[in-house]
């Protein structure tokens, strides 16, 4: 099929073409243009070509692929993100998830603090525990943890490391004691000594002695959390509702929901910190 040369339409018609098509010209001007089109072959062909072309263009509808939502869902809520069931409201089971930005934010915050201290602290290479490293320990671990939290934290960590620890245990010839966590490290922490305290308790005590109010202080952390969509409530730091019906749940709090005291050093920490050498 080869194109047929078409003579150029009239200038005045071209100037008002779009307004004429959309009906945005006065009735008088519209009648004038219509009368012209009726007797001008070039302008009639121009108008006909436009209308036919647009009709064809509108008929071409590719649409989205069938798995568009599923792929989008996996991008917004990546597999492995914490899932919280909201109690089966409305019709059937309803599922909410950790908001993607909140997960990323929390992970980035923890990682940044960790790297800041472990990687760039002046004592990083010497092996001594400097003030910045102590600050990181406060964030990465859990000082002053309520017993309920400690239990949940152990359970969460235990869940996350379960498969890995099983294979590690097999390879190292370690046999878990019935009733103890499968992870050797967890089992060590959970084991009760002759004085009735667990390794977990001892770790907390050690941290309490070393807590330091570092450069990233309590107020700064608090304001950062509040502006980035996290709230402090009932002694917990948790993501706020980011548009969905996500609700804080005690199912797996160990991953991201932390006691406030774990993130923001309490006043006693400051008092102890100033007394440190």
């Amino acid at each position, binding site marked *: *099929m080869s*194109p*047929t*040369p*078409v003579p*150029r339409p009239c200038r005045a018609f*071209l*100037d008002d*073409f*779009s*307004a004429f*098509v959309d009906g945005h010209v006065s009735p008088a001007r519209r009648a004038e243009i219509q009368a012209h089109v009726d007797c001008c072959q070039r302008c009639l*062909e*121009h*108008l*006909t*070509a*436009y209308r*036919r*072309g*647009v009709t*064809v*263009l*509108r*008929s*071409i*509808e*590719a*649409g*989205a*692929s069938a798995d*568009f*939502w*599923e*792929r*989008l*869902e996996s*991008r*917004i*809520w990546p*597999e492995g*993100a914490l*899932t919280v*069931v909201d109690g089966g409201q409305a*019709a*059937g*089971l*309803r*599922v*909410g*998830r950790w908001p*993607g*930005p909140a997960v990323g934010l929390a992970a980035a915050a923890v990682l940044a603090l960790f790297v800041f201290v472990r990687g760039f602290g002046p004592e990083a290479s010497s092996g001594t525990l400097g003030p910045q490293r102590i600050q990181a320990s406060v964030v990465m671990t859990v000082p002053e943890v309520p017993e309920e939290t400690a239990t949940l934290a152990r359970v969460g960590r235990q869940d996350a490391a379960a498969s890995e620890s099983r294979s590690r245990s097999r390879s190292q010839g370690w046999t878990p004691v019935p009733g103890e966590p499968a992870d050797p490290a967890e089992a060590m922490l959970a084991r009760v000594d002759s004085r009735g305290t667990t390794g977990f308790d001892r770790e907390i005590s050690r941290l309490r002695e070393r807590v330091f109010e570092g450069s990233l202080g309590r107020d700064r952390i608090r304001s950062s959390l509040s502006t980035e969509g996290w709230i402090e409530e009932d002694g917990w730091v948790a993501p706020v*509702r*980011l*548009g*969905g*019906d996500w609700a804080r749940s005690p*199912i*797996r709090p160990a991953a991201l929901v932390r006691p406030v005291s774990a993130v923001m050093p309490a006043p006693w920490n400051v008092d102890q910190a100033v007394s440190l050498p």
Partner: protein
Amino acid sequence: MSATTVRKPQTERVATEKLGDNELVERYLAGESRRFQELVERYEGRMVNFIQRSIGDRDRAEDLAQEVFVRVYRHIRRFDTSKKFSTWIYTIASNLAKNELRNRSRNPLVLFQTLTSSWDDDHRPLQFEDSSMRPDDLYRKRHLQELVEKAADELPEHHREVFILREIEGKTYEEIAEITNTQLGTVKSRLNRARNRFAQIIAPWLD
């Protein structure tokens, strides 16, 4: 506990289709998380088509449409519900399409998808398109579609954008001005030029 995707029942979908876009957004923000999926289902096809017509690449359009909804999800709390949701989402899509074209102009590589999509089109079995049409009619229809798409592609980027928004998406001049961040007069001017140019390109190919 494993993640479970729960699709809303069909009966509920029928009942909620009458909700306006902004109402869906408000309900989603109020905690009805599945309203977001409704928004996606309402706009996914339009977004893919709009972006495809803007950049001329089907696969990339699908990716960018996904990115549109990711951005909607991330920033939906900032959306001013006194304004039209469709204008907002088209603005996001328009900006992404512009970025894509800008990136392409900086990195003028011929996309493999572009080559393969043309090949696919040429080898698409005609009988699957419309069994009620004769092969020669089907050929003419497909040929005309290609010509029309090519004519739209030939328009300058900023003309093509307003042309698509007006002719395909049915946006008002005011909405187009907001989406493209241009003056109303500029929209009218560009649209007139785009329409005339489109007609001039396509006219020689029509009987």
